[in-house]
């Protein structure tokens, strides 16, 4: 069985036709994950025995499970999403042995719908950034060119067909940036659409679990399954979940999109991204999408404001990593020394600096000019985006100003606190808007087109992605696994 070429529906049909197919499926998933791990280091936890146990479990209950929406579908979770049967390390030395006492809400939903947990994917420590250089378990290589980062393991695992879908967190755009680096589709839904229970987040007001897939139709099916109110997460939306799969096929009105007129002012914007994006605008216009250049004067400050807010929230959220109830503990003679030893030895140098920065910005000398100013900027950007999206269906930009950076030089901003990869993506997190990245063919490494839509209007993103999938002859990026 060729897992990368089988759709979710085909997997389900084959299982329902013949349950012995499950053995073949389990073997195929294990082999594929093993190859991907060996070549790219995409996983932190991956255990063929655990996959085999799940296959046995499905076999024993398959007579009652035939209609489960994700029956037999292999998935991966980023290693900051809690799993009671696998470690959840946040790619940090601090949590290298941590075994969560419960499943995240998304983990429970996927398991209850018959999906197979293939492994936990690698990421930046605690999900801070997408440079691929701060995992305690070493960097993830890009499937398209192993000298480059893939941003995280979730995108690499989907592109290479190790899994059909993966979930990862997105605070300033990390999920979408990695998807852009690897040439796959990813959606960060409206804030609150997916429960964050069991996500070990670092920036609560910005961070959301998103989905990576190779296909728009499958993305729609997974969204229907994962979206919805969770009584154990006060921030989830108590809103009706649309039947995205059915709505996808319905005729769409002519799409009217806006592009910020100063989109090419992004720091470190590569020349070839500039050219490719302009080419894509022309192609979209040829498809009948009307595109206007508009003024969004404060959009350019989104990444700066989001960096400040996320650092302060990380300083606060990660305060409970103290070595008492779970995780790493440093040797110390007394309690205060234990706190500092534990945190100084358990966190990477990069994270220690980020948390200290968050602490600094929280102090009286910086609070008003930087933190409060960022929260006000957040209001202004939200108003600007809401106003823009009243008139336009979508806001269009590149996903990142550059393609996947080289691993020996993780980012053009190497050594800076603000990641310029978030220039286009952070605004959606500030305003809680849904956003999707769609891969584009280039001559070199992949890059993504980034679409933002009105709050709770994910269908507009899916319809646009489906249009591009059908009309632009997109070929999956080449890779050798």
């Amino acid at each position: 069985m060729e897992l990368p070429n089988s759709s979710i529906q085909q997997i389900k049909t084959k299982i329902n036709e013949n349950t012995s197919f499950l053995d073949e499926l389990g073997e195929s998933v294990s082999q594929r994950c093993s190859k991907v791990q060996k070549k790219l280091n995409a996983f932190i936890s991956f255990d063929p025995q655990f996959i085999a146990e799940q296959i046995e479990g499905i076999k024993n209950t398959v007579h009652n499970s035939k209609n489960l929406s994700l029956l037999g579908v292999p998935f991966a979770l980023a290693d900051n999403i809690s799993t009671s049967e696998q470690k959840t390390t946040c790619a940090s030395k601090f949590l290298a042995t941590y075994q969560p006492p419960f499943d995240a809400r998304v983990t429970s939903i996927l398991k209850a719908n018959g999906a197979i947990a293939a492994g936990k994917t690698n990421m930046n420590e605690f999900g801070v950034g997408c440079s691929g250089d701060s995992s305690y378990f070493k960097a993830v290589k890009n499937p398209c060119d192993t000298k480059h980062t893939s941003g995280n393991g979730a995108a690499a695992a989907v592109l290479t067909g190790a899994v059909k879908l993966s979930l990862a967190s997105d605070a300033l755009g990390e999920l979408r940036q990695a998807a852009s680096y690897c040439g796959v589709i990813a959606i960060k839904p409206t804030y609150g659409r997916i429960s964050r229970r069991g996500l070990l987040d670092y920036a609560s007001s910005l961070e959301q679990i998103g989905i990576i897939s190779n296909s728009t139709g499958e993305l729609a099916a997974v969204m229907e399954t994962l979206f919805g109110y969770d009584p154990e997460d006060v921030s989830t939306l108590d809103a009706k979940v649309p039947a995205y799969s059915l709505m996808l096929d319905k005729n769409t009105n002519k799409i009217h999109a806006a592009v910020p007129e100063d989109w090419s002012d992004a720091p470190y914007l590569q020349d070839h991204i500039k050219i490719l994006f302009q080419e894509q605008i022309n192609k979209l216009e040829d498809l009948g999408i009307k595109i206007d250049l508009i003024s969004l004067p404060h959009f350019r400050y989104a990444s700066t404001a989001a960096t400040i807010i996320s650092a302060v929230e990380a300083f606060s959220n990660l305060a409970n990593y103290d070595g008492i109830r779970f995780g790493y503990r440093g040797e110390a003679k007394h309690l205060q020394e234990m706190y500092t030893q534990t945190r100084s030895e358990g966190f990477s140098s990069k994270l220690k600096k980020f948390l200290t920065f968050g602490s600094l910005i929280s102090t009286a000398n910086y609070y008003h000019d930087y933190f409060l100013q960022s929260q006000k900027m957040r209001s202004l950007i939200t108003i600007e985006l809401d106003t823009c999206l009243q008139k336009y269906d979508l806001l269009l930009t590149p996903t990142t100003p550059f393609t996947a950076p080289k691993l020996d030089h993780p980012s053009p901003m190497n050594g800076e606190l603000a990641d310029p990869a978030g220039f286009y993506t952070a605004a959606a997190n500030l305003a809680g808007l849904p956003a999707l990245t769609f891969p584009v063919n280039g001559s070199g490494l992949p890059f993504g087109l980034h679409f933002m839509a009105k709050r709770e209007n994910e269908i507009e993103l899916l319809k646009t992605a489906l249009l591009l999938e059908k009309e632009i002859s997109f070929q999956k990026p080449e890779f050798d696994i």
Partner: protein
Amino acid sequence: METNTMELKYASLDARIVLTEQEEKELTEQVQKFLDMAAPMKKINLANIKPTYYGFTRQNNLRKDEVKPSLPLETSLANAPDADDSCFHVPKIVED
């Protein structure tokens, strides 16, 4: 605005983190570079704008105030670096 070493030392102390001299030097440079980059945003007059603390437009969805089972004691203690069958263990509060 310039950040001095003492401010960073106090900030790391608040975060219960000890930075090495090298890390302190690197962070001082990074903070300075970041603040320079953030300077244009700082200058914008936002006096009449209210801050947003959550990208969330609806009310919190609170569940009913009903007692539900909590984690068993054994499970709660399972990840602790040092515990017995009923308590977390910590070093002495006061140094000898």
